[in-house]
């Protein structure tokens, strides 16, 4: 007796369950959201509480260009996956490469901002409370962009090797959820750090 089959009806054909990839990714996104929430709360709670300068107003400029780049990469990754689903691997590769480039531009921009702050302004994570919350929140987000970029680069390599097939569109679709999440988080970080915090 190794199975518990019943004879009453066989509705096996109608049996459909949600996709594992999507459910798993949404759970992960929920966990990541909780992590970011704590960092955002800490940042907001500490606005204006630093006991010494410099203040956000002295240091930060709105990173408009890199923000536009990152947000548009959400569109390009969407178009890439759509192309792959329609079996247009070449078009996919093009959009995918654009996504990677836009993400990389964002990271470089963050890097330059940090370089400016650290080497020219002498402002580090231990300078004051603002430095602590600023570098850790922006850094946590940049870390997530980096992880996403590594994954995108990996898929890019496979694309160049000709290994990416239309049947992989489901997986890349699941990955794109992560990328959209990273973008949404940036909207929040941008608002909190560069708009409200300033």
């Amino acid at each position, binding site marked *: 007796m190794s199975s518990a089959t*019943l004879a009453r009806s066989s509705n096996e054909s109608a049996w459909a369950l949600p996709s594992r990839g999507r459910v798993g990714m949404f759970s992960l996104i929920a966990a*990541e959201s909780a992590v970011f929430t704590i960092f955002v709360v800490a940042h907001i709670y500490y606005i204006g509480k*630093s006991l010494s300068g410099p203040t956000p107003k002295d240091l930060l400029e709105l990173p408009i260009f890199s923000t536009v780049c990152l947000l548009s990469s959400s569109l390009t990754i969407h178009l890439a996956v759509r192309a792959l689903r329609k079996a247009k691997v070449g078009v996919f590769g093009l959009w995918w490469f654009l996504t990677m480039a836009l993400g990389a531009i964002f990271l470089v921009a963050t890097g330059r901002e940090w370089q400016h702050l650290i080497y020219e302004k002498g402002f580090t*994570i231990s300078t004051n409370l603002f430095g602590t919350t600023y570098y850790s929140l922006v850094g946590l987000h940049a870390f997530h962009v980096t992880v996403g970029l590594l994954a995108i680069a990996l898929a890019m390599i496979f694309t160049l090797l000709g290994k990416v097939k239309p049947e992989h569109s489901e997986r890349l679709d699941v990955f794109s959820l992560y990328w959209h999440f990273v973008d949404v988080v940036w909207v929040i970080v941008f608002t909190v750090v560069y708009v409200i915090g300033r």
Partner: protein
Amino acid sequence: MASDTIALGIADPDARPIGERLHDWVVTVDHKKLGILYILYSLFMLVIGGVEATIMRIQLIVPHNHFVSPQVFNRMFTMHGTTMIFFVAMPILFGFGTYLIPLMIGTRDMAFPRLNAFSFWMTAFGGLLLYFSFIGGNGLYGAGNAPDVGWFAYAPLTSRAFSPGHSTDFWTLALLVSGIGSIGTAVNFITTILCMRCPGMTLGKMPLLAWLNLVTGGLVILAVSPLTAAQIMLSIDRYLGGHFFDTQAGGAAVLWMHFFWIFGHPEVYVLIIPCFAFASEIIPVFSRKPIFGYPVMVGATVAIGFISMSVWAHHMFTVGMSSYGNAFFTATTMVIAVPTGIKIFNWIGTMWGGKIQFRAPMLFCIAFLFQFLIAGLTGIMLGASPFNWQLSNSYFVVAHFHYVIVGGILFTVFGAFYYWFPKMSGRMYNDALAKWHFWLFLIGFHLTFDFMHIPGMLGMPRRIYTYEPGRGWDIWNLIITIGVFFQIAGVLVFVGNLLWSLLKGEPAGNDPWDAWTLEWSTTSPPPDYNFAKIPVVESRRPLWDIKHPEDPDWKYE
């Protein structure tokens, strides 16, 4: 590790070299092996945590004792609390979940088997890091080894100034690492339960164990992630000179408290809900009745999940919150008792009029019902903020939460152990020894934790390494420590029973309890693939339907 191979020796008659078989366990991605690894790991840690507790209790047996120094005492309560919560309770419950969920929902493995292995090894590595502090914690400073900041590690005690050396670093890294493992497990539980159920098993036909673990998974995601975030902040403070919890630079120590308890309270439900799940599987089988009020059980559990996110500051009444804060958190704490009470009534309703069989798993579950009720009542008392101002940080609190953690969680875990041991090992346990275990442990538990309420009410603070004679605490502390030895005796009987039964127990057969859920339809222990043919179910009790074709459940559900 030795008992792994014993278990395998029974499970797997082909005699391959022992090294090869051990290697199988290290590289396995099979949910049954990982489940057993989790359980063995936690049992090992339970012994270590128990030794630490015993050291504390020996120190407190009489006033002015000199068994250990104050420094060692601080390390003992920190390591004991951290070990028991993060490396005993969580992993043992994850272990049962990992083992049982795929079997009970009729599938062959978890949704992400490799993630499953990753999560287990992260948890194991976290425990290793914590205990490595005994060797590596000194750092260059000659400053104490193991962590001594308490299991909730309040700021600013954790800052470099007050905790030099590396011991606190080991504490925070251990929790960071094992937290990542826990989140992986939670993702796996949720995905498995939502996406891998066998045909016919709609959400309303899932065993309650699956439902409750689904809620637990959600709570782990919402609770452990904030802890992970807080540990990252603490690491930034300690390693990079950040100021999150540095009051000298405008940081707030109270923020750490909030972050910790936003994790801490939901965490207690992460621990108890899987135990509710065990009770909800065991009580019906030994009452020979289906669970009373299935939909209400599900609803109450989901309600507990939500409300538990809003009560955390009842751990912080003495910090001095606004009167609105006090009122709010008192009210939510009262509210959460309602769904919890509903569940107790449902279990009693299940037993009501049933043909109760007092087998070892059932005994543990009945004790759980009584003890959990009392623990919930002291919880409500502590939830009333004026009462709390009197008794917070006293032995009354220690008695409250041990009543839940030992009297509720550990008792049901023992029950679950006896209930599923035949499935996992293929052998029956020794019934007489199990009863000895039960009675010894019951007596020990009540000696220790009933009487612990009294010195608490007489004003004995927790975490003191010794006390003055003549305050009326002496006799109670003596009784408390005597109870510990009964508990130790009970656990020794348990371990003895475990080893004896693995080698000499009667073969269990597929279904020793005449039970109703899918794990009992396959062999004991189950084959690697669990089910030769994926089952199809039509009710909450598929095996009942098979055994009683004339009167199947699906006619009534």
